């Protein structure tokens, strides 16, 4: 059976060329970059430094501005908590958008507990943050502004350029979570006036367990891990050398091939987008044009997300639900089931929020795979609707009304 993976926003397959670059660092070159008096340590140190330059080149940064971490969650935690603390005693206010990842949102919990004031910026129905709202939210005591580059659930690309210029004028440290965008669309710190940028290797065909935080020269950041002096003191602990090397290799590939990938993804994404338009009562989410290439997200009236995904999986089509209502994101308390914060933020009515579906295409996907999804969906939607009491009521209303 043909299997089609359309969940690249959760992770991407490792590019075999990246794997080849990493391979020697598992068995042959096992040194610790901090213990570099001998050849093994030297080889590891050189590899990490080279990867640092490669990752920096992807986003137009200097090598010395890249701090390696274990991934996006750690980078986001470090950015939010580190910048809040680093801003100094007088600055006790943090501003974030309503659609940030959990690793930004939940990092606000300890800040609130410590007495910080948090302002949450709303988004419009396409999920876009209004730069004017940013301007109004920033204050003299604002320590940090955090707005993501692209949203994984609905694909919308945020106007981080204009927002960054506002932050710069206000003298506020600006963090951009570029986990979903880096390696897919240009992320250039010479154009985006961000002080901190989160990157994740496994989101652009690199390995899991490697991420980075770009730290613009002069930005004040307090560390969150304490130990040795690795990563300029911002992130103690021995580097995950093979993964760091992989992140460097993935950065080179992305820098070179991103344009071709995006073209391929945009073409396939359009085919998928257009191919779903015939399904009645299907609503696309996110911005119609300012969105990640190959990202198609939607919800379908009278259809629950997980059921749809299970049926799709049986047909070999692997997609994801962006909704917190479904599966593993359900609250610990069964009574406390909440709609996806992102869908709520863009005003999707909560009684149908559970139908949120995200297709995120990757460079390896083919037109045949997209066709498989387009062919499978209408029948699954119909089958689930036939089972749904809400659809039955809807039909009865239609008959009465007509």
């Amino acid at each position, binding site marked *: 059976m043909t299997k089609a993976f359309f969940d690249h926003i959760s992770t991407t397959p490792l590019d075999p060329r990246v794997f080849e670059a990493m391979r020697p660092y598992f068995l042959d070159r096992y040194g610790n970059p901090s213990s570099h008096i001998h050849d093994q340590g030297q080889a590891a140190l050189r590899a990490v430094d080279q990867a640092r330059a490669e990752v920096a080149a992807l986003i137009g940064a200097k090598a010395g501005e890249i701090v390696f971490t274990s991934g996006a969650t750690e980078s986001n935690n470090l950015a939010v908590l580190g910048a809040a603390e680093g801003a100094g005693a007088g600055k006790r206010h943090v501003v974030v958008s309503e659609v940030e990842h959990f690793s930004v949102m939940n990092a606000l919990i300890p800040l609130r507990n410590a007495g910080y004031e948090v302002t949450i910026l709303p988004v419009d129905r396409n999920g876009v943050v209004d730069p004017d709202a940013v301007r109004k939210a920033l204050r003299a005591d604002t320590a940090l502004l955090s707005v993501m580059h692209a949203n994984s659930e609905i694909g919308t690309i945020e106007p981080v350029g204009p927002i960054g210029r506002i932050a710069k004028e206000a003298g506020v440290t600006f963090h951009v979570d570029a986990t979903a965008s880096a390696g897919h669309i240009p992320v250039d710190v010479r154009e985006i006036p961000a002080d901190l940028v989160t990157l994740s290797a496994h989101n652009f065909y690199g390995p899991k367990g490697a991420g980075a935080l770009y730290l613009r020269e002069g930005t004040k950041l307090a560390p969150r891990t304490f130990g040795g002096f690795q990563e300029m003191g911002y992130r103690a602990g021995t580097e995950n050398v093979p993964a760091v090397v992989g992140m460097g290799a993935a950065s080179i590939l992305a820098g070179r091939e991103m344009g071709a990938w995006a073209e391929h993804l945009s073409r396939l994404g359009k085919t998928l987008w257009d191919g779903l338009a015939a399904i009645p009562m299907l609503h696309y989410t996110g911005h119609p044009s300012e969105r990640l290439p190959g990202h198609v997200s939607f919800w379908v009236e009278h259809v629950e997300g997980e059921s749809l995904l299970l049926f799709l999986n049986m047909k070999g089509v692997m997609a994801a639900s962006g909704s917190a209502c479904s599966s593993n994101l359900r609250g610990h308390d069964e009574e406390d089931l909440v709609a996806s914060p992102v869908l709520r933020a863009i005003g999707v009515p909560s*009684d149908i929020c559970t139908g949120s579906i995200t297709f995120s295409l990757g460079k390896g996907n083919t037109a045949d795979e997209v066709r498989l999804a387009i062919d499978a969906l209408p029948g699954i939607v119909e089958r689930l609707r036939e089972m749904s*009491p809400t659809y039955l009521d809807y039909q009865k209303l239609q008959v009465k009304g007509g």
Partner: protein
Amino acid sequence: MAAGPYSEKVMDHFMNPRNVGEIESPDGVGEVGNPACGDMMRLYLKIEEGRVRDAKFRTFGCGAAIASSSMLTEMIKGKTVDEARAITNQQVAEALDGLPAVKIHCSVMAEQAVKSALDDYIKKHAG
């Protein structure tokens, strides 16, 4: 075929749900849950001589919700009203070879649906 977090039995009842539909002039109807919380079940009962002669359902919900609904209808058919009322969510979950912890509420919904439908039956027949 087992898939994701579910047992083979759950997947069987999800992919091939038993007793989906409506009953014309049912003796009892129960509706529980809310689409806003992710699932909603409507259960129709035909009751003759104190026994559940037929049961049909419609459910909006996840795989576990649909499988729990399907399993419940199988379990209550032929049972007396009192036996049907005594069915617990644990029994529904066990009959499905277990549910993931976060999905137990789906079996609770099935238990509540039958109680709600039987309450409706009693109300109709008391009047």
